[in-house]
């Protein structure tokens, strides 16, 4: 079985790639520090280099890996669950809605009451969006329906985010729409890691539990149920898992698009198109992809604070269009 034998190799390769990019992300920052000095920083924990490593670069690398993984994973799960290759948290407006929740939490001062208000509000925003999408798209696998649902949700969430930022008392708020729409990991601290990672982990476990059901769903919902799959349970896992994971991620990074679209698509042929196998591969691939994009952001224009979503969109949007054309050709 070639695909069977290839699969562990693929996972190991992706894992290694993600690990290397994680290390690179520690080594490449906004300013250049000699790798030897960085290694020395492990001994002298009081040096400026050690501080930069532990407090600035480590959180950024951790968030890049975690957020990339949950975005890749949720893209793979949503595609399998909705049986639609265009499903992705960014395109479906789930990330934008999570951003809206986060914005409301921050600028209404809820985060001052309890830090967890931030991820929880983002989660709530994401939950509303996934539920809506699932209701709109659940019955028909029509490409048009899913794109229009995503467009409608994204614009609505974007407009409301903009409204919330305009109403916010802080003079900087109105300028921050860019961050919430395009996402960035710049100067996130371990505090943010503490906020996001628990949600990413819980959401990730829930999403990972859907694997078998997604395989069965390849044959349609009726056959899946006849194979003993509990679709209600699967729906809860997919919807709530996505909301928790993407909500927690977006709360600290803003909405980062296209990761959940590109990564599963590139990996799907390599795992023999089986949805359950795609899940771990997409999580590792997503982590590697976002770490690489975040390194690119820092290498290309370190002083301009390029938004991460700009890089993923520059790569993702043409990919999306190409996918759309090839899908239309196939269904036509």
């Amino acid at each position: 079985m070639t695909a069977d034998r290839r699969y562990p190799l693929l996972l190991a390769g992706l894992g290694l790639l993600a690990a290397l990019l994680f290390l690179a992300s520690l080594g490449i920052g906004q300013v250049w520090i000699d790798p030897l000095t960085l290694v020395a920083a492990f001994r002298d924990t009081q040096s400026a280099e050690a501080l930069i490593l532990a407090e600035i670069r480590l959180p950024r690398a951790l968030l890049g890996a975690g957020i990339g993984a949950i975005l890749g994973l949720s893209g793979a799960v949503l595609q399998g669950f909705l049986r639609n290759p265009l499903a992705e948290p960014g395109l479906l407006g789930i990330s934008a809605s999570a951003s809206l929740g986060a914005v409301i939490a921050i600028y209404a001062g809820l985060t001052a009451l309890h830090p967890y208000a931030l991820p929880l509000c983002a989660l709530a925003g994401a939950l509303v969006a996934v539920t809506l999408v699932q209701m709109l798209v659940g019955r028909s696998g029509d490409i048009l329906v899913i794109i229009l649902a995503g467009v409608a949700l994204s614009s609505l969430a974007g407009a409301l985010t903009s409204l919330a930022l305009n109403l916010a008392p802080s003079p900087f708020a109105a300028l921050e729409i860019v961050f919430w729409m395009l996402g960035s990991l710049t100067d996130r601290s371990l505090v943010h890691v503490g906020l996001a990672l628990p949600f990413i982990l819980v959401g990730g476990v829930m999403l990972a539990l859907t694997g078998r059901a997604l395989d069965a769903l390849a044959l349609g919902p009726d056959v899946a149920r006849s194979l003993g799959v509990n679709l209600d349970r699967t729906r809860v896992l997919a919807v709530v898992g996505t909301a928790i994971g993407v909500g927690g991620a977006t709360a600290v990074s803003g909405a980062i698009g296209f990761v959940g679209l590109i990564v599963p698509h590139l990996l799907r042929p390599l795992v023999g198109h089986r949805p359950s196998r795609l899940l771990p591969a997409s999580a590792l691939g997503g982590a590697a992809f976002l770490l690489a994009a975040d390194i690119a952001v820092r290498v290309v224009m370190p002083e301009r604070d390029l938004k991460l979503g700009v890089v993923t969109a520059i790569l993702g949007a043409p990919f999306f269009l190409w996918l759309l054309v090839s899908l239309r050709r196939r269904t036509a």
Partner: protein
Amino acid sequence: MIRLDCESVAVRRGARETLRGVSFSCERPQLVGVIGPNGAGKSTLMRAMTGLQPHAGSLRWQGRELAAMPPGERARLIAYMPQERTVHWPMDCIEVVLLGRLPHRGGFGGASADDLRQAREAMERMDVIGFARRPFDTLSGGEQARVLIARMLAQAPHACIADEPVNGLDPAHQIALMQVLAELVAEGRPVFVSLHDLTLASRWCDRLLLLDRGCLVADGAPGEVLNAERLAGVYGIRAEHIDIGGRPSVVPSDLIAGEDHVEPH
């Protein structure tokens, strides 16, 4: 021996009753054809028998109420093949067939050697083993149907329910498929198959259930069910009755003028 009892099974969709008081029993392995015009409720009955369709009345396999059966147990008892033959991802055919083994697997385990053996046996039986490593979407319609039947066989069910499996197959594959279904019956499994082709139904089925507008209007051997009166009343057609290899068969010939039976309601 598998036994199915349907008692006053009724299904309501909005204001419309798609099944009304359907009762029958199946006590021994038979090839049961479910026939009737478009919209008669064939698919609804098939889904209900699989446990996919909420319904009123009682549906019991082995004396146990289907609705109360755990999904996993139900999946090891009955295999179902719907009318639509979509596989949403271009998986290799062996992977598609292996999906039939899901009810027999533990929580997270992959396919065992036994699963693989049963999947390959099912594919050999359907003469599709050569496609094992080919993506499903590169196959012709008839080949896809055979792979999906292999998927159903791999489930190693005690009963099979197939909704219009011969649709879109050429005559040779239609006959080959009916042969396989007949073999499954000979091995001791009841097989329920919905059919539009009355010739195939009368030639291959041991028993026919004739549905009309949600009601079971006839239940019995093909020769009894497909008499001229019912064909006229339910389908609005005339048919030739011929004898094929000792079995009475029906060949529809022409419409009965003056009555609009083509569009029920």
